[in-house]
């Protein structure tokens, strides 16, 4: 509860700051302070100190897992704001509003990690997404940003419609929006076609939100068109929060609506998930190979990473849950790190990275570590993230799916290494314009790199928190 209420209040605080505080450089200080407080409040709640006692009528249920996921997301946001605040200031004149919108998104995330009712889930998703439409279009005079915002908005509201239809069907079949009563209800009653249809519609809507193929079409265009600094936020924190909600929703439904439990109308979820996973891995990895712009390549690579995160849905067991946390942390770190470098580049093409290692060795090194982590090379957290996901699937007895995953991970090495090769093995054609980096960015990147490597050597540093 701390997180939900405080993030909303902090959002309002920043809105008010934009109206009443004229010193623009103060905004990021306020935002950082609020984020620190938010992280602190969330950790306090994890330790059992809830500041607000509100009867939520069982619409929200707070547990350690969700709160810990909040902590990951908020800390990642803190890191993100720390690294990128100077870039956020550069987008347009509305710095404080951007921070406010980020806080509102975080409020949505906090709801998504604790919902116990489809109404709350719906609200969480919308609260998380609507600020993103605005952030996407925040570069008002840039046609690409406009286009991305409109595309995102149209497709996003379309998927909202589908989500709602799914919820309506489930409500019709079970008479309740609560997650628990759905669980109990369906075990007693005969599963109806209406409910299963609703579940599949929810699957589709969520597949859209987490950009799983074939519902991924918005992702490359939106990530490409949005101001890079906000793409970073969308591609990292929002994406993993969407996955958490996805898994949270479906882990209660898979059992009861499955083919095995209800042969009459049940769904062979493994079949559907496998199709989604393979399609996502295929589209993401294959399309990323031929991209000319690193930003767009990263957009496709985020689809590919989504394919790996979908494994958590395929095999819901303790192993994949641990993997999801690790994936969330590692993927956020790597994405924030690489975008922090990308926004400072003049040229987003692969050629723009030529010879970066020579004149900016620190940035190049950080980028390399992030890319290695995304590619899943050992000694980075990305390796263990992928490892846990694949191992969970193997444990479930679907080794062939893990092999498919490993093959596509092999393809991904190709395009990630294109960037590394450009940085280290090619020299820039002309004298490259100096990349503006402050010491803040370097400290932030150092934290990212340290995080990736520490978790890559000792993933337990994170996972221990799940069991303390």
């Amino acid at each position, binding site marked *: 509860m701390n997180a939900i209420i405080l993030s909303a209040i902090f959002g*309002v605080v920043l*809105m*008010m700051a*934009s*109206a*009443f505080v004229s010193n623009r450089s103060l905004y990021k200080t306020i935002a950082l302070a609020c984020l620190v407080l938010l992280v602190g409040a969330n950790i306090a709640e994890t330790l059992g100190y809830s500041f607000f006692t509100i009867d939520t009528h069982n619409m929200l249920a707070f547990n350690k897992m969700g709160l810990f996921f909040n902590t990951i997301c908020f800390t990642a946001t803190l890191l993100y704001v720390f690294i990128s605040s100077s870039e956020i200031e550069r987008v347009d004149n509305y710095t404080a509003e951007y921070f406010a919108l980020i806080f509102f998104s975080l409020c949505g995330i906090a709801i998504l990690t604790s919902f116990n009712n489809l109404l709350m889930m719906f609200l969480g998703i919308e609260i998380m997404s609507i600020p993103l439409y605005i952030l996407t279009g925040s570069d008002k005079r840039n046609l690409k940003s406009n286009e991305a915002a409109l595309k995102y908005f149209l497709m996003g509201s379309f998927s909202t419609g589908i989500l709602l239809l799914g919820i309506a069907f489930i409500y019709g079949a079970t008479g309740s929006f609560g997650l628990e009563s759905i669980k109990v209800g369906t075990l007693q009653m005969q599963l109806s076609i209406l409910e299963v249809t609703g579940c599949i519609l929810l699957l589709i809507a969520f597949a859209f939100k987490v950009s799983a193929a074939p519902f991924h079409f918005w992702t490359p265009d939106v990530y490409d068109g949005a101001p890079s600094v906000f793409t970073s936020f969308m591609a990292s924190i929002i994406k993993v929060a969407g996955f958490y909600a996805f898994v949270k929703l479906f882990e209660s439904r898979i059992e009861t609506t499955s083919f095995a439990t209800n042969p009459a109308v049940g769904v062979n979820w493994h079949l559907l998930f496998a199709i989604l996973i393979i399609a996502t891995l295929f589209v993401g990895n294959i399309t990323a190979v031929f991209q000319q712009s690193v930003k767009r390549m990263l957009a496709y690579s985020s689809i590919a990473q989504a394919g790996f995160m979908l494994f958590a849905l395929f095999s819901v067991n303790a192993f994949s849950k641990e993997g999801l946390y690790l994936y969330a942390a590692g993927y956020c770190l790597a994405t924030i790190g690489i975008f922090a470098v990308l926004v400072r580049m003049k040229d987003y093409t692969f050629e723009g990275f030529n010879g970066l290692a020579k004149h900016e060795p620190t940035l190049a090194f950080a980028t390399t570590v992030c890319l290695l982590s995304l590619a899943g090379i050992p000694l980075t957290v990305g390796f263990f993230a992928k490892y846990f996901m694949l191992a969970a699937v193997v444990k479930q007895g679907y080794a062939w799916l893990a092999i498919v995953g490993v093959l596509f991970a092999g393809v991904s090495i190709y395009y990630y290494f294109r960037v590394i090769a450009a940085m280290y093995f090619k020299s820039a054609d002309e004298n490259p314009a100096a990349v503006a980096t402050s010491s803040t960015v370097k400290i932030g990147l150092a934290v990212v790199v340290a995080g990736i490597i520490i978790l890559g050597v000792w993933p337990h540093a994170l996972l221990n928190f799940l069991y303390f």
Partner: protein
Amino acid sequence: MPIHSLLDATVVNTANNYFPIGVQLLFAAGFVATMLIMSALLGPKRKTSDKLANFESGIEITGNARQPMAIKYFLVAILFVLFDVEVIFFYPYAVNFRELGWAGFGAVAMFVGFFIVGFTYIIKKGALIWED
């Protein structure tokens, strides 16, 4: 004390209940139709260019109405939509006003408080300043 459900606001409906409404509708439509047809048949018809021109309260026409409008109009329209629709939450409160008591009042006050914050923001940002 049970909270009055919104569902209680409805009564069982049968076709009979709608009969008076139907008759009234029929009368209204018939009256309008009769008047229109009558005036069209009885009235004299002279067509001149002046008569076919757009009537703008007697003032000379100034041009096409499909001109790009100032962004202010859109801003106000958008804000109107937002604030207008939020009022929807007052309906359940109004229905259960007594039963919800002070707790409900507190909740609604908080809701309105958020509104006022938003409104303050809009005013401070100058969104409602009509003159440029």
